[in-house]
């Protein structure tokens, strides 16, 4: 079962900086000074040069066919910092000719020149965080931009030739009405991006929103969250309106025009190897999952570019067992609308899927939550609505 190596892998690069932290964000990111960012970029380059060593974790593949620069707000980096990173990546990995290379960017952090520079680095996909088109919602979320900033960024991106753009939008924002959300959907559809990620706001712990909307939170005059019925309506509107506009849903929260599904993210759900660099980044190489330290201070010390000798250091190293991999195959694979493939399972695990999950599949199928088509198994629409309950069944 071991040595299930894919020829090429995915590379994730984490940039933990932002202008200001949004009220809902629990990602590893924080505002920083120019000098700090510079220092981080040097360390990041040093880490990429090092790559994991065999006595630490398995050696990653040499070929990379997708790259995702995420954050935080990676577009906060200067063009020359981004250039430095991309150069080091290309020096150390064989980046496929047709690689999908994405960078996340926030309106208000990129102008025409920077977008041009980004394009010149070979980065060919932009993921722009819009979240909502009404300025009240944007303010409530703590975003640094308004609708016009976004429209300008989007127009500039098209101007410099980006032909693969994702727009992130969000539903269930405090105070948001069903009407306001439809307006967001309509405005985004009008712009004709290639890809739309539509998330429902989740109140995560350790965020300002948690103090207001969390378990013991108090509204204290803040707008309340949409009612359950409204939230559900938004969720259905997303599916219907995007589908009418020619976007097909290929994962629980992701919609694309034919051929523009995000290859990088698809890789996560189909169990491909990925290497994460930068603080807190997670990797999965050859059946072993591991992470980088999540403290900036520690990270800067480990990959200090002034030191002669640097040793890679990883935490939470976890060799996945067969049952871990089986579980992940199902609960990640079923997030995709095309579902999981029984032949693929057989090839990976050397047994019939039913020998492990037969009774679970039968029960969920009977409940109308799963459906089978030839060799594929996927969630029904109803199954997607309650996917947490469904997917929990696949844990052994």
């Amino acid at each position, binding site marked *: 079962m071991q040595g299930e190596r894919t020829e090429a892998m*995915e590379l*994730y690069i*984490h940039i933990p900086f932002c202008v200001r932290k949004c009220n809902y964000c629990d990602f590893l990111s924080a505002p920083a000074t120019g000098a700090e960012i510079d220092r981080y970029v040097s360390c990041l380059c040093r880490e990429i040069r090092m790559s994991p060593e065999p006595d630490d974790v398995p050696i990653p593949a040499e070929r990379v066919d997708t790259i995702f620069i995420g954050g935080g707000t990676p577009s906060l980096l200067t063009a020359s910092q981004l250039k430095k990173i991309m150069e080091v990546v290309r020096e150390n990995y064989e980046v496929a000719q047709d690689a999908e290379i994405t960078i996340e960017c926030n309106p208000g952090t990129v102008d025409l020149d920077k977008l041009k520079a980004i394009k010149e680095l070979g980065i060919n996909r932009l993921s722009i965080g819009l979240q909502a088109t009404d300025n009240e919602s944007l303010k409530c979320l703590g975003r640094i931009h308004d609708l016009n900033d976004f429209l300008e960024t989007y127009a500039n991106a098209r101007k410099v030739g980006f032909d693969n753009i994702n727009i992130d939008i969000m539903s269930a924002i405090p105070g948001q009405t069903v009407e306001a959300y439809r307006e967001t959907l309509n405005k985004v559809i009008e712009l004709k991006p290639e890809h739309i990620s539509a*998330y*429902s706001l*989740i109140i995560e712990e350790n965020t300002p929103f948690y103090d207001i909307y969390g378990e013991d939170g108090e509204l204290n005059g803040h707008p309340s969250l949409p009612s*359950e019925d409204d*939230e*559900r309506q938004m*969720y259905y509107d997303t599916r219907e309106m995007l589908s009418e506009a020619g976007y097909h849903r290929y994962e*629980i*929260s992701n919609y694309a025009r034919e051929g523009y599904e995000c290859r990088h*993210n698809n890789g*996560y*759900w189909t169990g491909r190897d*990925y290497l*994460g660099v930068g603080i*807190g*980044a*997670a*990797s*999965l190489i050859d059946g072993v*999952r591991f*992470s980088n330290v999540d403290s900036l201070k520690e990270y800067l010390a480990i990959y200090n570019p002034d030191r002669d000798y640097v040793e890679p250091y990883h935490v*939470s190293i*976890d060799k996945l067992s067969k049952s871990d991999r089986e*579980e*992940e195959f199902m*609960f*990640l694979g079923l*997030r995709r609308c095309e579902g999981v493939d029984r032949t693929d399972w057989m090839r990976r695990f050397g047994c019939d899927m039913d020998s492990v999950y037969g009774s679970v599949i039968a029960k969920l199928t009977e*409940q109308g939550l799963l459906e089978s088509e030839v060799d594929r198994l996927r969630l029904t629409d109803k199954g*997607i*609505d*309650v*996917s*947490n*309950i469904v*997917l*929990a*069944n696949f*844990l052994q």
Partner: protein
Amino acid sequence: MTDQSKIRNFCIVAHIDHGKSTLADRIIEKTGLLTEREMQEQVLDNMDIERERGITIKAQTVRTVYKAADGEEYIFNLIDTPGHVDFNYEVSRALAACDGAILVVDAAQGIEAQTLANVYLALDHDLDVFPVINKIDLPSADPERVIEEIEDVIGIEAQDAPLISAKNGIGIDEVLEAIVHKIPAPTGDADAPLKALIFDSLYDSYRGVIVFCRIMDGRVAKGTHMRMMATGAEADVVEVGTFGAGQLFPCDELSAGMVGYITASIKNVKDTQVGDTITDAARPCEEALPGYKKVRSMVYCGLYPADGAKYPDLRDALEKLQLNDASLQYEAETSVALGFGFRCGFLGLLHLEIIQERLEREYNLDLVTTAPGVVYHVWKTNGEMIELTNPSNLPDPSEIEYMEEPIVSAEIMVTTEFVGAIMNLCQERRGRHIGMDYIETSRVLLKYELPLNEIIYDFFDALKSRSKGYASFDYELKGYEKSELVKLDILINREEVDALSFIVHKENAYERGRKMCEKLKDEIPRHMFEIPIQAAVGGKIIARETVKAVRKDVLAKCYGGDITRKKKLLEKQKEGKKRMRQIGNVEIPQKAFMSVLKLDNDN
């Protein structure tokens, strides 16, 4: 042979917290059986649970040697008695093994309901009782008032009662001398046929049952072929001996007046029932000692393993506990909702809690407990009477002529300012007012008759909260009375859940049904469909709540860095399910089955 005139067999009676165990410790310490280093905080309380709850569950006994002021050595057998009303019968047998009793009364709190109950019990057994006023070093101590109270209420001489502080070792010598002079020596006939009272027993996996007994007449030694007169069991004595503190000291023989233990390779405590009389099968005594009663369970509930696969473990654990506790009864039963388990009978709610805790702690079992109930008498139209311990077994209403429920006589002592509140409480619990006596100007003894099923849940808690802790309470079973009782059924998603049914008075059915539904609505998680929760009496729905359906439960995001965390979330969801019971399509958390116990929390 020990000189009976140098033996003192006695016990200490007191209200809970008045310092019984502490005084026992001081007596043991002063008589020098143990060095101070060996003294554990409370020598008599062996079991963890006892220590934590600060009460003595099983009677234990200790033998110490005291060198008195007259220069003679006296043997003190201090027989410990459990302090809770659940164990009244055990208390009465322990008292029967004594010749006298020390009454400990708190110098600040004075006499409490339980003090009275225990003193009367001691006086009923013709024990010589002498009072001791404890905690005299408390700022609120008022020994004069307490002495007066003892004389007025109990009617025993208290002017020369030792004023002590067991905690700080004040006045203990006085107590020791009082034991020598005020407790009578035993007067048995060592040459008569053997007659010994079993007042406790304990199971040891090496020696079998260890019988605790008081020799009234005759003698017993290794080789005696003994017979238990009530159960008829016979066995050859392997060893006899006396008690240290937590240890057994073997000796050659036990003779009239002595307190000690007997082992005889007996396999089950059922053969050595408390209160039974031991005699010599070869030379039996003519008549057994009076007062033997077969222990009867007052409270029943279903105990089920949370994990169905642990059923054999629960059975083994109950078997082992019963070896040590003849008052624990159980029989296998099956519930549609909970699977295989046991219907268990207990002396009272405290006894139930203790057993439940021991099963969980000592045997590592995760349990689901159904609502405790009492034993009802169901008279059928064909003249037959069934003792109903499980509501599910109630016959069809058409076959029932009438039903009876157990009634207790209760004594509640309370300060005058709370009399109104406590009388209201008793009224709410269907109590019948019998009488009211003034103990002193500020304290009242209320006498009520109450249905047992109204006091087993939370009566004691309600009593304490409505009297700011000042009320004390004691009761004994009076008998059975005809009552308008109905079975309240709970339907979840239109299916009757047998483990949630209970018997309730007709007048309270609606109220309890409504509360039950509300409670279950909070306990049952939302499913993918709507779940009606209904309460019904005789097929008629009297209350209803609805658990709304989950229509959306989605993790919006799951990318590379999230996988581990998201998997944990799903695991948590799955873990939650494990602790659920499947009833039809509905998963019910185990604690929902116990929520019925807490219906009156808003009092």
